[in-house]
């Protein structure tokens, strides 16, 4: 698996309230509405300008605070396949994996990457390459994710993986209906 994308760079302790505000947690129930509010209280430009494939880069403790899974889902709905950080808060880390978004810990890469840089993340080699580095491309290695985590990512998230495990893959995925609609 390889991902190439343009980077959005943020600082330390980006919390899930600024990623997906709490006031929306029970009023926005359709995942298709989530992307428009991603990072709303951190960077109002993000949701307007993000392109599918873009990568988010953060400092330490990325995703701290509330357990709300919408914080991971809203970034997924923006088409963000990978988040690179110095460290992740544990519930957000799990929420990313469970929704098929790759959380990669690589402090050296975070130090080197600037907003707008185009980078490639190579999972097979556990390498991040900064393609837009002016002279020759810089590369950084990261600790590979465990086999159990990769199994969830490769299945597309926890729900699809469990459908496989439970033998319910053949059943239609129920269309999610919302009472408020």
């Amino acid at each position, binding site marked *: 698996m390889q991902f190439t994308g343009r980077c959005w760079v943020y600082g330390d*302790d980006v*919390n899930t*309230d*600024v990623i997906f*505000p*709490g*006031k929306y*947690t*029970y*009023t926005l*129930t359709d995942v298709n509405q989530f992307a428009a509010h991603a990072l*709303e*209280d*951190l960077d109002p430009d993000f949701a307007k300008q993000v392109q599918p494939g873009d990568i988010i880069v953060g400092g*330490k*403790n990325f995703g*701290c*605070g*509330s*357990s709300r*899974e919408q914080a*991971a889902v809203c970034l997924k709905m923006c088409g963000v396949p990978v988040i690179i950080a110095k*460290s992740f*808060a*544990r*519930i957000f880390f*799990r*929420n990313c994996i*469970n*929704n098929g978004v790759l959380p990669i810990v690589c402090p050296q890469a975070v130090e080197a990457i600037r907003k707008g840089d185009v980078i490639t993340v190579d999972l097979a080699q556990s390498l991040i390459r900064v393609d837009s580095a002016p002279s020759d491309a810089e590369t950084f290695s990261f600790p590979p994710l*465990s086999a*159990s985590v990769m199994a969830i990512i490769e299945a597309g*998230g*926890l*729900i699809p993986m*469990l*459908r496989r495990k*439970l033998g*319910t893959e053949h*059943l239609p*995925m*129920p269309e*999610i209906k919302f*009472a*408020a609609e």
Partner: protein
Amino acid sequence: MGKTFAEKALARASGQPETTAGQIVDARPDRVLSHDNTAAIYRLFRQLGVERVKHPERLCITLDHAVPAPTTQHAQNHAEVRRFVREQGVRHFFEVGRGICHQVLSEEALVLPGMTILGSDSHTTHFGWLGAFGAGIGRSEVAALWATGELWLRVPESMRVIVNGSLPPWVTAKDFCLKLIGDLGQDGGLYRSVEFHGDGISRLSLESRMVIPNMMAEFGAKNAYLPPDEAVFAYLEERLQRRLRAAEAQQDAVECAAIESQLATLRSNALYPDADATYAVEYRYELGALEPMVAQPHRVDNVAPISAVKGRPVQQAWLGTCTNGRLEDIAAACDVLRGRRIARTTRLLWNPASSEVLQAALRLGYVATFLEAGGVINAPGCGPCMGNHMGVPAVGEVTISSANRNFRGRMGTREAEIYLASPAVVAASAVAGVIADPREIVG
């Protein structure tokens, strides 16, 4: 080699003789917590193609996050939760107004020493106060637990905090937590099981103990732990007896048998770390050296002593939450408010953590004192904590609150400031109209 609390608790939860930090286990939690997010979890559960929850008796569901419903959408969400509860026969369901999940499950003795509880709420660390392993998880993971009863967890490394001494007057467990988080940063306990030991812990009231593991969610901790003592057992025993009498009255033989077995094993099921357990790091704190602390906008680790921030104007002072919405919190606030009025420029709100807290406050005269001082009483529940309703600030306003989070935008608008402090500091600030030291207000 000795074992930490987390290693022992996750060995029990995964049915293994022992576990070691770093190991991945399939844990089978005794309790699975969810709240207003139950309806959203149900939609994920349906995608799994499973009809029935595997262990409905393990589920604990509380409507608390936006109660009573502020909008039709919130009401619809609650209606969906009730439909799920009926359909799956969920026994431990608590309606609007009963209180905040962590407080209610404690009051109902649904979580006991040595148990593991996983919940789709970051403050599930709370249950460390009674020696349980409590950790927050995501919604998909709760759906997975409903379907299969198990979930992978990594056994965390542990850190030990030795707490000695006694709190000075007007200094609280909240001030201790803010001091710890301020010293070590909001990721100071990242991924760790944070164990608290020392005579300072055993001297704290049970309600003060509850504050500590609750606040460890703001420290990055996976779980937290305080060693359960006789005071904890007595609290739980009384409440288990109460539930037993209710179950007997309803001739509910299954529930009676479950509670009787829990009463018989209450003490023997408690887990304590070994003296030679391995800790990644250890810190020591002396409670007698602490003073009232305040977390300033917009970070919980942006902490200063009250002397450095007093005098800043506040338009709203709010008491409540799973951190500081209990009886001793309103009692401390009333010690400041008694015979005083709040400032004309400030409003004072209180959300009791539970209906039980509100009833006790009524009986003890705190409700009268609070109202006479000019306070407003909201329904038991999470209130304005995450910006839903019941006291969200206007653009440019400043709130001082007894809550646990002051992230930008937390209470509804990114253009408002939130200070976090103890209930006494919140009450003193309401009286003064500016951030104030209760020791100076009361004199």
